[in-house]
């Protein structure tokens, strides 16, 4: 394949990621917002580790540093609305 898909939920390819980094989107949060990667049903479990590796490689920064720049947002997997109905006093 000439241009592999990095994010299956939002159908983002490697060349799109590389172009975005060239344009100055040089943190995971910025790339996520620009490309919508990590915002689909997988919530980044598949694509964000790949994206972090590409970003570390392209910018020459350590992977651990790159990974720290993204926030993990609950719920960790899609959760049915019915789980949260009723009994609004706890939490």
């Amino acid at each position: 394949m000439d241009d592999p898909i990095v994010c299956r939920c939002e159908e983002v390819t490697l060349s799109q990621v590389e172009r975005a980094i060239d344009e100055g989107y040089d943190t995971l949060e910025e790339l996520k917002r620009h490309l919508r990667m990590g915002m689909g049903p997988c919530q980044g479990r598949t694509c964000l580790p790949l994206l972090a590796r590409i970003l570390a490689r392209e910018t020459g920064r350590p992977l651990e540093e790159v990974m720290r720049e993204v926030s993990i947002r609950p719920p960790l997997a899609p959760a049915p609305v019915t789980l949260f109905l009723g009994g609004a006093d706890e939490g």
Partner: protein
Amino acid sequence: MRASADVVIIGAGITGVALAYTLARRGVRDVVILERSFPGAGATGRCGGGIRQQFTTAPNIRLAMGSVEIYEQLSQELDYDIEYVQGGYLVLAETAEEVALQRRAVALQNELGLPSRTLTPEEVPEIVPLFDTSTIAGATFCPTDGHANPFRVVEGYLRAARRLGVALEKGTEVVGLEVKGGRVTRVMTNRGPISPGVVVNAAGAWSRQIAHMAGVELPNQPVRHEILVTESVQPFTEVMVISLHTGIYFSQTAQGQILGGIGDPEERPGYEIRSSLKFLRRFLSELVRHLPALGQLSVLRQWAGLYDVTPDAQPILGPTPGLPNFIQANGYSGHGFMIAPKVAEILADYIERGEVSEDLARLSLARFEGEVEGEAFVVG
């Protein structure tokens, strides 16, 4: 980083980028935006994207109407798709008191030229299918309200501004303001100082700290507001729905997700932006009460941002009393994304020509010295 600039803007949220672009388009191109993090990292990139004109104070209504005129053609103007949808806002009321308040608001809105109107509960499903009419006492609708994608609005403004010569300095935190002879003479940052012609405080929920660096006290308070999106479903409405009764708001995004939030009267001021289970329960219970069919969805993601709240829920705009080159552009109280395009125009009028419009004068920091009439429709 440049050593000086005609205009130094603190904050690359919607206010900062809209103002930078508007100035540059008019030929004021020596503009630098200082951003501590990255563009849209604060409230703008966390907001619901609603663009509402149904307010209760004349300045808010006029600013919002002026903004809609700009939003209507902004994708073309910026040559960037901002995912603008002019599907209208449906405002819900559940008590006789709220219905009466809506009637008065619509009268003022119509007087100012806004095509809002009152609806009976029975008329609501024509506007939003699947709506349970037994949950409300009345509603209003304005077809020219709408929503857009905040990420794309920030990007669009910024790209256009940079093409015109505006500089963006990411990762640049303001750490001090030097004041001499009634002017801000230097802006100190973690990357060195910059000498400004004028300085614009567009730092959102952190504006109070920025102002304090110049010895100016703002009454703004940061208040957490939570929000979520569901998985994508078939598009069924372009309308943004909000309730005066519970403070819930929601719409369907261009991607088909249901996106919304609900205000929490128990929320205390502070910088905490963690997500809570309490919010999930309150929001989803209200969502499903109005639209039972949405109980079949799954929640994808939740997050939070900070409203920058003033005592009258109206922004603080324009020159600071005693410091004419220090311009406030903050305190939007949850409405910044809606009115920023028009605010950018009136602030540019002041920066470019020293012109102070009626609304700019009314929204000056000086107003808190007297009696103030507050905005009643603060939702979310």
